[in-house]
């Protein structure tokens, strides 16, 4: 048996037969649109504690990163947009409002989506594999990706979503609560809280206070982000988070300007900061046909990651499907993903993955292999994992250390 230290019991004891059965069950649930445990869904008060209210906004504490300007204006310094906001107006994110010269967050304690997901769904493949992440989001985002998969909550304001009244302490208590699940024999317990689905930077204060309260209760926190944040707030966040996933949406400013309404350089700066702070992080690159699938650009990006961040940073290539304002493109062909996967491995990255390919039985690029002896260490099919064959964070075949957080709290092994 593998020696992973902190998996969920049901996952740890997964036999091949059970693994296949659960994959099939997961596929059925996805196809039927049933409310399976890991399907993202808006916050619902029907089977979970806490009532939802359309447009519910209960707490509006003062924001922590802004400057006061003359005549009641403010400049938000949380993200690189640096919005200058007049009285009664909101920043680009739509969830921060100037009220008489004081800048307030409107999403503190008001999540609009809550779910328990496999940590692999984030995706974080080298962080406590096989565990569950209590995942939340509030309305709003500080960019507008034309291909946003969660645009119905990220591109609206908190008045337009059904929100829970869930301040940090209540959220942590809810996260710690055991749950029923289709996928585990016993009750499901979340090991981490994931700030995800929309852009956690826009609910920074809520995320920060929740992560701090969660750590005191033995629950880790992870941020699933676009990395569009300024240096000071990100540095502070590193004190309370255990892992970060960054969506690197492309490796050109042109793409960021045209399809994201943001800038690339601040994201690269965030990645360098995370590496400097020794925060565990993984990168996802959504491959959009004709927009960011040029092998030359991808090779340059892989070189940059290898050189600036190190070869141990996991890089996930994910397939695009048409949505939101980018509906006139086809899905990303699997061959494109596989080509970029190969290019990145050749450039020296040790852990490169593929995602969203929907290949029956899984794709070899979904599993973790030893970069030295190529032995399979963690087999995956979409969000399900099989055996975790690591021994004290090392390959049992050749004793090569495998970068990641396999037990305990943050810090590269």
């Amino acid at each position, binding site marked *: 048996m593998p020696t992973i230290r902190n998996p969920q019991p049901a996952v740890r004891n997964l036999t091949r037969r059970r693994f296949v059965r659960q994959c099939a069950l997961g596929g059925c649930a996805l196809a039927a*649109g049933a409310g399976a445990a890991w399907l*993202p*869904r*808006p916050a619902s008060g029907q089977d979970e504690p806490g009532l939802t*209210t*359309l*447009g519910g906004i209960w707490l509006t504490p003062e924001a922590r990163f802004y400057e006061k300007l003359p*005549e*009641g*204006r403010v400049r938000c310094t949380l993200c690189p*947009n640096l*919005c*200058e906001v*007049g*009285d*009664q*107006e*909101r*920043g*680009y*994110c*739509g969830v921060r409002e100037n009220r008489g010269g004081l800048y307030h967050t409107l999403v503190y304690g008001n999540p609009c*989506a809550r779910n328990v997901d496999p940590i692999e769904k984030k995706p974080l493949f080298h962080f406590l594999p096989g565990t569950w992440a209590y995942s939340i989001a509030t309305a709003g985002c500080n960019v*507008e990706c034309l291909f946003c*998969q*969660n645009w*119905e*909550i990220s*591109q*609206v*304001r908190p*008045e*337009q*979503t*059904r929100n829970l009244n869930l301040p940090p302490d209540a959220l942590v208590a809810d996260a710690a609560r055991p749950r029923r699940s289709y996928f585990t024999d016993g009750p499901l317990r979340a090991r981490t809280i994931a700030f995800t*689905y929309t852009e956690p930077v826009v609910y920074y204060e809520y995320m920060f206070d929740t992560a701090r309260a969660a750590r005191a209760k033995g629950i880790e926190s992870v941020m699933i982000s676009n990395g569009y944040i300024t240096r000071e707030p990100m540095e502070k966040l590193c004190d309370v988070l255990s892992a970060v996933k960054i969506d690197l949406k492309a490796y050109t400013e042109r793409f960021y300007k045209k399809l994201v*309404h943001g800038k690339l350089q601040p994201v690269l700066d965030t990645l360098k900061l995370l590496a400097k702070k020794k925060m565990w992080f993984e990168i996802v690159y959504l491959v959009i046909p004709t927009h960011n699938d040029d092998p030359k650009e991808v090779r340059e990006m892989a070189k940059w990651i290898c050189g600036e961040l190190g070869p141990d940073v996991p890089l996930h290539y994910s397939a695009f499907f048409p949505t*939101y*304002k980018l509906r006139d493109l086809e899905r990303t062909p699997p061959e494109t993903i596989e080509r970029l996967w190969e290019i990145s491995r050749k450039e020296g990255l040790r852990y490169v993955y593929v995602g969203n390919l929907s290949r029956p039985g899984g794709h070899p690029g979904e599993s973790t292999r030893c970069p030295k002896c190529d032995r399979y260490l963690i087999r995956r099919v979409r969000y399900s994992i099989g055996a975790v064959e690591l021994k004290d964070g090392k390959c049992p075949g050749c004793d090569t250390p495998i970068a990641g957080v396999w037990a305990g709290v943050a810090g590269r092994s």
Partner: protein
Amino acid sequence: MSELRIPHSPLRTLGRRAFLQAGFAAGAARPALGLAADEKSRVVAATSSRVFGEGNALKQDAAQDLVDAAVCALTGEQSAAAAWRHFVKPNDTVGIKASCLAGERLSTRIEVVRAIARGLQAAEVRPQRILVWDRKLSDLTRAGYPTEGCDDFRVVGNDDRVLGFHPPLVEIGEIGSFFSRLVTDTCSVIINVPVLKDHDLAGISVCLKSFFGAIHNPNKYHFASLHQAIADVNRQDDIRRKTVLHLCDATFACCHGGPTPPPKWIERLGTVYASRDPVALDQVAWQKIEELRKAKGLDPLLGSKREPKHIALAAEARLGTNDPNRIRLVRAAV
């Protein structure tokens, strides 16, 4: 998140019959503004110094005179009732779009809105079919509009729990937005009643900018492509077809520090502008703001970063004319 839907809840107190009638009335096409080559857009300015009451209040009778004079001059009618019949039918559900972001300091005055509502009633529109709306109910209440107990109209916000926004996403040029159900469903006629004011990003915020209050995500367009987005919002079919009159409340105005200016920038003009052409009215409003800025020694908006380019873009989109030679400014006798 495919299971998430922007909630659908038609106005709570509107009966099924009234709701359907409103929908049919809305469906009846009204001609979009389009000027023949030799035609001019008429903008009426009615001014009275008698309109000011105590503090920020207006005298209701004088406000009524101003509004009546403006619509009569615009339509060429002798009576307000006859003038209003040019714009509405008795079975219309009329949405009066107010601009109340700045609260009591500089919002569409309730006295002006009441005068409009009484004019509509003179044209046989029932008070319960007159809805005063803006992006948020709280904006309206901060500006002094009562949520209950008003005999002349009802007050609703399009960003509150009652109405919401209409899926699907409408994509026009720069924008991709849900539009308020008040615009798409509930109202068959819209009367736009903005304030004459400076805007820190758009240059001015008058008729065209006012309809940012009709979309669910104005925050996404305030920083990039703002001017094009303003023009594009006004290209939306319901806004074009249903907005029959733009009546700018310039009793109080600001030429700097907007859209929520400190008191020192607010001044009393005692004017109401009226036009069917939002572009022409914005062009006139811009010139007025430049005039006020010059008098205060402020730099002109023209040629600055804040030049209100959305006016020209709206003209390019054939929403009206910004050509001074094709705008006839008429001073109405009050």
